[in-house]
């Protein structure tokens, strides 16, 4: 099975080298592609200098646009699996194997590398937001539970690659998970441990988070009922 790691990177010049070098040295069995989402720092230069496999988007299109290009890349070159791995080094590639095993064992469509499959959520503002979304998904999918809805570490199979690459509404966000669960898509979680980001800043401030929550709740509670349900 051909597996591709897609690494969306927006202004990750300080982190990208560490992340990709680790992949190249310790996990040579996986293919990877760095997707530079129109960074304004030296991300592109660093990747070019080190000769990384780079998909260089000329302008910033946001995370879901970057993932979309990654999915199209995977579809174009005929990959069977795609793993999304953040460019800031939060995700440890050692878990890719357990994600893959879970997918092969159960034949599901998406496996989420979850911080809260067996462990409890800590209580802070970020996790309250996460819990609200978990509850919203639980309410709208007749009791399906996803602990770590915002985890950026996900494994997709071929069927999902096509959909994420070509459908406008498929963003790599919790609302898509809710919609897919209602389409009968099998989504599972595997416990992983994530690191804190070492350098750089996360892109979500308070205003961004409020808008994010609003988007997600509107989408999960309202819009998903009006979307076409793809069965096959």
């Amino acid at each position, binding site marked *: 099975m051909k597996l591709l790691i897609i690494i969306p990177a927006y202004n990750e010049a300080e982190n990208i080298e560490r992340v990709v070098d680790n992949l190249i040295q310790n996990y040579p069995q996986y293919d990877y592609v760095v997707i530079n989402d129109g960074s304004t720092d030296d991300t592109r230069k660093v990747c070019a200098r080190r000769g990384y496999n780079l998909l260089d988007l*000329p*302008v910033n299109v946001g995370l879901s646009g970057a993932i979309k290009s990654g999915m199209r890349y995977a579809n174009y070159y005929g990959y069977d699996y795609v793993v999304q791995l953040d460019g800031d080094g939060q995700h440890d590639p050692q878990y890719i194997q357990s994600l893959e095993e879970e997918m092969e064992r159960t034949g599901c469509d998406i496996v989420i590398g979850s911080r809260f499959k067996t462990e409890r959520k800590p209580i802070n503002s970020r996790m309250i937001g996460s819990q609200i979304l978990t509850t919203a998904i639980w309410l709208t999918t007749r009791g399906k539970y996803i602990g770590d809805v915002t985890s950026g570490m996900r494994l997709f199979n071929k069927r999902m690659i096509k959909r994420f690459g070509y459908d406008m*509404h498929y963003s790599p966000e919790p609302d898509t998970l809710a919609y897919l669960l209602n389409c009968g898509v099998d989504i599972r979680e595997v416990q992983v441990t994530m690191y804190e980001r070492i350098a750089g800043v996360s892109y979500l401030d308070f205003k961004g988070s409020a808008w994010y929550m609003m988007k997600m709740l509107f989408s999960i509670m309202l*819009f998903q009922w009006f*979307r076409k349900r793809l069965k096959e």
Partner: protein
Amino acid sequence: MSNTLRVLLLIAAVFAAVWILQKIRKLKVKMEDAIFWVIFAGVLCLLGVFPELTYWLTERVGILSPANLIFLVMIFLLLEKVFTLSIIVSQLEEKVTVLSAEVALRNHSAERRLKAVEEKTQKDEETGKIEGPEILKEQIKTDKNR
């Protein structure tokens, strides 16, 4: 506030909601852009269903007729939309400019490098060092005939 106005408000609300949800279904609009119109429909609905709310607000703001307040609210909402749209259009224009510049630049760089390779291969072929790929020969032939 006449009943006709209330009915009109409700019709407008339902129409806006149905229209935008239809667009979501047909993949014509992103869901985050639809939020505004759903809220817009909600506000129209509120004003139509609870005229007391309109009366109360009219008094607070000091406007003579409730109908005027409704116009005012709608104008405010639409102004906000025009304002944000104008900003988004500016950003999009800038993005297209950068995008075309980048595409042209990258094409230029790729062509330059390709040309260097072609010339090198041609030279090597002439001196009998290597046999260049077939596709390159065809390309050079068509370039000469052009």
